[in-house]
């Protein structure tokens, strides 16, 4: 079975315990207004160009077979090797599950010796849950973690949570109307899946991107903390303040970054709300 990846990153130090390799699976059902990995959204391969260094030599235009303009790009990849500066690439490579596992296992000894393993991130990795399951099966018991929005059917969520050793889950905003507005989907499935995660027995961490005036209110964080309650296997909550560099990759996929909030404002970072409730909380 094949899966679509847009990156593999070694020495991911913020994606779970120990030294880890993070696999980024392409495709996401959410449309978060602050998304910093826009090439992870579309579940198809797509062309990425570093226009910043382009010298407009025209080699890519000459190489293009389709005779079309950029809007009709099929991500066929013909232009990629034509660029003398290698500024073009296709985000989204198809990998056979067993091949991916084999590649990841090359560093197995080092990952295991340092208490780490593999983290599946995205995009939303649950979109390709069957592929992910097969990769995990082929990883021969190597520690696996998933970094997810939790947006998936109950069955899919359970299957994957039961198959991994650690879960990092985002909780963006508790108010459903806000969630629909800023993430493009209802958070009902997410909150339902959170309940399963809490009783699953799998250690987990909650990540909250702190977006100014979207979810950085005391009210939202108190609601979040109340939802988490005293979950036995909750390792910690990490608050990630919004960084102004989030929009860096949009131009590369010929899109425009249009955040619907005031990017100039510094978000509140109320760690005390969690700490007061005996939940370990840090700023990531």
């Amino acid at each position, binding site marked *: 079975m094949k899966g679509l990846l847009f990156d593999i990153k070694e*020495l991911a*130090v913020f994606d779970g315990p120990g*030294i880890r390799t993070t696999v980024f699976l392409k495709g996401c059902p959410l449309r978060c207004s602050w998304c*910093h990995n826009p090439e992870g959204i579309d579940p198809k391969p797509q062309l990425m160009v570093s226009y910043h260094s382009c010298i407009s030599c025209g*080699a890519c235009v000459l190489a293009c077979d389709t005779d079309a303009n950029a809007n009709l790009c099929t991500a066929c990849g013909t232009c990629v090797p034509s660029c003398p500066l290698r500024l073009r690439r296709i985000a989204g490579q198809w990998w056979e599950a067993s091949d991916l596992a084999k590649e990841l296992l090359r560093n197995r000894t080092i990952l295991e010796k340092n208490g780490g393993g593999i983290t599946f991130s995205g995009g939303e990795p649950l979109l390709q849950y069957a592929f992910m399951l097969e990769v995990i099966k082929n990883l021969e018991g190597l520690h696996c973690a998933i970094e997810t929005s939790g947006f998936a059917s109950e069955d899919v969520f359970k299957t994957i949570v039961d198959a991994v050793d650690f879960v990092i889950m985002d909780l963006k905003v508790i108010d459903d109307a806000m969630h629909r507005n800023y993430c493009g989907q209802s958070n009902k499935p997410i909150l339902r899946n959170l309940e399963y995660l809490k009783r699953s027995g799998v250690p987990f961490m909650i990540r909250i991107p702190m977006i100014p005036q979207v979810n950085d209110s005391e009210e939202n964080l108190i609601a979040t903390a109340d939802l988490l309650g005293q979950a036995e296997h909750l390792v910690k909550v990490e608050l990630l303040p919004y960084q102004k560099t989030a929009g*860096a*990759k949009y131009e590369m996929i010929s899109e425009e970054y249009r955040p619907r909030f005031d990017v100039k404002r510094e978000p509140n970072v109320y760690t005390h709300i969690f700490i007061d409730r005996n939940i370990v909380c840090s700023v*990531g």
Partner: protein
Amino acid sequence: MEQRIENIRDFFIVDKKHHAYRQKQLDPLELTRTLEKEHLDDVERAYRRLEWVLSHEQPVVFSDEQITFVRTVCEVPEIFSEREWDTIRQKHRIHEQGKVSNINCGYMSLIDIGTAGKRKEILTARKTYEARHDKQKVAYLDVLLKVLASMEHFSDRYREAAQKAGNTIVEESLSVIPRKKPETMLQALQFFRLIHYCLWASFNYHNTIGRFDQYMYPYYKNDIDAGVLDEHGALMLLEEFFISFNKDSDLYPGMQQGDNGQSIVLGGVDEHGADAFNDLSKLCMKASLELKLIDPKVNLRVHKDTPLALYELGTQMTKQGLGFPQYSNDDVVIPALKRWGYEHKDASNYVVAACWEFIIPEVAMDIVNIDALSFLQCVMDAIETLDDCDTFEQFAKEVRKRLRVRVAQICANTNGIYMEPAPLMSILMNGCIVKAQDIRDGATYNNYGVHGTGLSSAADSLAAIKRYVFEERTVDKQRLLHALSTDFADDAQLLAMLRYDAPKMGNDDDFVDDLATQLLDWFAEAMEGYRNDRGGIFRAGTGSAMYYLWHADELGASPDGRRSKEAFACNFSPSLFARTKGPVSLIKSFSKAHLERVANGGPLTLELHDTMFRSPESIKKVASLVKTYMDLGGMQMQLNGVNRETMLSAQKYPDQYRNLIVRVWGWSGYFVELDKEYQDHIITRMELDM
């Protein structure tokens, strides 16, 4: 940090107020002219130079300090005029500045017995040579006696100045040392400072510090046991001592500001294999962490039993962005040195020279950077035979031959070295007094080290030829040769393919890593069997020093897609335009070679973005990576938290920084691929972080 230490740091380092005392009107050429006129021999001249500097010094003692001595004489005179140097050069090879440098002397051999004890030693030897009527030896020993007297006199003048300044602590120290053995650690440090000061004043340079935590430990322990010092007091002392290395360092010779060889070595095993990292080592780390000064440069010796906690402490230091500690692996270095004939006791006691070369304290007059082999030059020397080669193996054989030619030339070119005498250094080196022989004439070990530069570019070049010319046959020999001779001017496609798509060292890809191993083996084998004219051997290494620019500047385009004159990577590292899979694959690639054969010194240099050092947890992971490299059999590593200067340079020369990775937020990206506004943002952020 204590207020007093902060004041001292601000005074000397931030405000440089001591520069006001510097004597700008002195003319060092005046002495050079006198020496030339008087036709003195070089030993006498070397003494006269030290005496000239010390007698021209105007003692300045500050009321707040406990460790004194600061330079007011800005320039140390040459002992030969330019004309005399020309004559010497006709008969001799001159290495660098023709001075004894970059060795590690036995400070304690003087500190532990004082100048009075040392004088006795010299007089004993003098009697022996007098009985033999060996006038030359007697004259040499007389010079050593004069050196001691000069130091004592100089120290006495400082004592008087201390008295005038009302600084009773300094006055008290200088009434014990240098004549007698120090009674406290403070006095021992003051003595060290005096010796080090006088070495610089003798025009010796790259005056390394060595295993300070080992040799100073008895004084530390004594003071702690006697209640003279507690841990906090010792830390303050160390901090003031460390600041002293930065007071005059702008006056020290070196290739670049900061290249002054003040390397300190901490930890490591003792000769019985037991871990020697002690309380003093830990305090040294702490002092360096608090001070955030570039000197002394910390080298950590590690081994298989070194706890992760020490690597974590080291990583916290790296976080400061100063580029140290540098790690060296006892489990590789000690056996390698023994393989080269160093005694077990000496090999176990190794220290690090100015950059990364391994040297032995007190008993070695090795010149560890006598020359450098350019691996890529060897490949390019053979390129003209490519057309006649039917297989890659044939071509590889041609490369190996060219490499042997270069090695033969390098070794032959080391004969007849002349160095100025170094009487003070000789007092501090084992055997010089007994033999009445200056250290410039040799010690127990007289080996020469040869760097190896452009390894990754050479391995990548061979890999490209192997794959495209011989295996896939997608690149015609003539096309490649033409492109190389025209600097890829009319073949942008080939350039891009070789530069970006070809296999590169650093990706845990045996196809290219094995070629690097091969090159290193050839280098080591080619040097084995050669002897220098001092009876020593030649040691192959993986360091580059400044040669990675010099050698690259001499070379045209190469088959790895490197254009004419483009720089090599520094030391033992992937090429500047190799995009690697990441740090894990990288350390695997760089631990494959038979490093015990090429152990002159030269670290894997790793650049990590400073956000990797953000939390205690991530620091622990970076520390684990370093430990993993050593566990894999890595020899030496230095790592940098990437800083603002790198980024600014990357903006100017993006093509040289293609593998520079930055963490932008929740993702990492190639810096040069980011739009300028985002680059600027990260630079601004880094300014804030620092």
